[in-house]
């Protein structure tokens, strides 16, 4: 009985203030409250609220057969609780239907697994606790920032009681038969590994953004067919679609024409005999692993270093990350919840992504030079903040 797993990533980094060297020691407010409020307000109306309403309607209409998973980051939860609680209320109502699973991750969408195993585990626990408190669910599916994966990470997840791990990659590994199968990590006994179907995820994303602009969206039937076709060809078990809620959500609002698309897609899929929307935890329970995948750090398709080039590949990113995690001991010594919260906020991977210089000239040509204008400006701003934070820790 083949299935489709629809998973939306809901994540936004906290926008940091423009912080010059001359601000150091003068004030310690790093969060740009005005910008965060403004942008979250925009997105609430243009994306999150209408998209949440649409999904709720589909769940109610399908009597629970339409199911969706959310990878909701701690950074996003923080923003919603501070500026727009109604967004969180929307997610709570979705959770109440029983058709929604929330994934677990390192709370601030961090790269802590690279630098501090202790911090990594604490962040996973902190995020789990938030999900429990907010939605009354005990999350059992884990995913890492940017869907990064390795044997070691799988080991941590299993040890912490997860039953499924959602990741990207696998091509070229012995035993790999395509993304639509359930695998077992090499050193794990229970944990199941689910892989994102990159091509279909990318196609849907393209459909949402391009299709609505051109006014000629592909018919939902065509996509449903592609999904079925993909499963038929590979003999696979489940297609995992992992989409960004913000980019997709913007196009799910009624005036974009895509709400019909998703409705039609869900109707098409639900119209197929023996076809189900499934949640990651259900998949892990239902399917036996097809093969074991052995993913050392440099295994192809999972190449952790390649995946990390955009967040930890250059001198600035490495310097900033090193300086950040060098503060761990001092932060812990303070035993101050506010200090810990700031340190964690500064771990959000987006800040390091902004420092990526690879392909920067091309991004400028596409008018996408990032929130700071250049990787260098973003590094300077970040380092100034870190310098101030480090000084407050010493005082």
């Amino acid at each position, binding site marked *: 009985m083949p299935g489709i797993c629809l998973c939306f990533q809901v994540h936004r980094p906290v926008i940091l203030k423009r912080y*010059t*060297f*001359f601000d150091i020691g003068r004030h310690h407010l790093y969060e740009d409250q005005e910008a965060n409020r403004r942008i979250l307000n925009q997105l609430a109306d243009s994306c999150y609220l209408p998209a949440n309403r649409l999904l709720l309607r589909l769940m109610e209409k399908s009597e629970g057969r339409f199911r969706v998973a959310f990878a909701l980051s701690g950074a996003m939860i923080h923003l919603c609780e501070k500026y727009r609680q109604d967004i969180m209320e929307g997610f709570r109502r979705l959770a109440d239907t029983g058709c929604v699973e929330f994934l677990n991750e390192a709370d601030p969408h961090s790269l802590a697994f690279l630098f501090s195993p202790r911090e990594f585990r604490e962040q996973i626990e902190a995020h789990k606790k938030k999900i429990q408190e907010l939605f009354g669910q005990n999350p059992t599916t884990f995913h890492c920032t940017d869907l990064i994966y390795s044997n070691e990470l799988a080991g941590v997840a299993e040890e912490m009681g997860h039953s499924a791990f959602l990741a990207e990659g696998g091509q070229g590994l012995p035993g790999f038969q395509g993304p639509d199968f359930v695998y077992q990590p090499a050193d794990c006994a229970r944990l199941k590994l689910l892989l994102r179907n990159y091509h279909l995820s990318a196609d849907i994303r393209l459909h949402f953004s391009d299709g609505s602009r051109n006014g000629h969206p592909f018919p939902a039937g065509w996509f449903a067919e592609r999904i079925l076709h993909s499963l038929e060809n590979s003999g696979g078990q489940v297609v995992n679609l992992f989409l960004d809620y913000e980019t997709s959500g913007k196009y799910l609002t009624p005036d974009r024409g895509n709400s019909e698309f998703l409705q039609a897609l869900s109707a098409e899929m639900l119209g197929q005999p023996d076809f189900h929307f499934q949640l990651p935890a259900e998949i892990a329970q239902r399917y036996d692993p097809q093969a074991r995948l052995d993913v050392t750090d440099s295994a192809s398709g999972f190449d952790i270093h390649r995946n990390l080039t955009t967040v930890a590949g250059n*001198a600035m990113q490495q*310097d900033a990350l090193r300086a950040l995690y060098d503060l761990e001991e001092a932060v812990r010594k303070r035993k101050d919840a506010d200090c810990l919260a700031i340190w964690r906020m500064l771990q959000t991977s987006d800040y390091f992504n902004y420092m990526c210089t690879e392909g920067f*000239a091309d991004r*400028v040509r596409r008018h996408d030079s990032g929130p700071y204008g250049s990787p*260098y400006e973003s*590094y300077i701003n970040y*380092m100034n903040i870190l310098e101030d934070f480090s000084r407050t820790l010493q005082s």
Partner: protein
Amino acid sequence: MFGWEFPPYMSGGLGTACSGLTGALTGFGHPVLFVIPHCDPAEEASHVSLISASGFPLLETDLACPALKNPDVRTVDSLLMPYTGDHRYRERLKRRNDPEGTGTSSGTLSFDLSGNYGPDLMQEVRRFGMVAGAVARRHSFDIIHAHDWMTVHAGLYAREISGKPLILHIHSLEFDRSGNRIDPAIYDMERHGMRAADHVIAVSQYTKEMIVEHYGIDRRKISVVYNAATRHPDSITRFDQSSGRGEIKTVLFLGRITFQKGPEYFIEAAARVLKVFPEVRFIMAGSGDLMNLMIERVAELGIGQNFHFTGFLRGSDVERIFARSDLYVMPSVSEPFGIAPLEALLCDVPVIISKQSGVSEILHHALKVNFWDIDEMADNMIAVLKYPALVKEMMLRASEEIKRIRWQNSAARVIGIYRRVLAAAGPT
């Protein structure tokens, strides 16, 4: 080609650009006759055939027809200085009592031009035009390429005589140089030249937009060709060991000390940096009409101990100063292109450039600020001095980027423009 500067007869970026462009053009097999106001005939060892307008033998007919159809050109007795502030050549200026400036002492007729920027500039520009006509009569060529307003007269006259199409290459506008205190005579000459030329080349999109906005020229007639930079043959590496960058960090301003180059913003930012890093050394290299004012401002801020003025630098001194610098800052108020940041990068010096510059369109791996934002400028200066990872990454990327900014690319664009203009002009 008509230009006002060519190495070693130059005071700024115009000569550097003309030399780089013509070098690549001749490399592609297109010989260039380059006419400048004055050069020493004995000193000809260049990739172009350098023609000195000064002393160029003239006939009576050359003098008889300065009948340019140009209502805007008139002789004005004012202190015209297109690149304000370079008076160093003035002592070399030889003036004759003869009002037209023609010398007939050795039996031949010729002008004596200085090629300087001074009070007689408009007069020289006019005489240069007359010589251009004579050059056009005696030499054969396919296209006329003139650089900036000083050569508009010459380019138009040469076109009148030869019937060959004229391309006007804009390296700098009166609007860049003088802000809102523009000289109407120069503005008129620029506008007339761009209107009359068969095609206009601008050194950046920034300059192109300015031409469209302030001069009302049809944008379809303007092509953007970026400048480039080459490492000098006697490379600076030999200075690296002897006088390399030391313990004390050095921040450099290099350029004419004029309104256009924004020296005061550099000084204000320096004062802010020195409040937190009292050990940094600042150098202002160059000369210009604001120099005394700047020296006074430095004294007023009480930062003279860390702030040095070198005066005008040339040749190997420029490379030497780059080799000693940890950061180059170009805070220009309005910079059509700006070759110096490229030269700094070629010498492994990181750069902060003003967003109001053409070079910022092609240089991505540099820090960019609005020239008026002194806090931002100071913040960036501190970051370069304080964060080695920033410099390491930026220089790694910039050194890759600058390899692709080559005069050959600029010349290839120019040749493409020549072809289009010649095709449009039809067979001659």
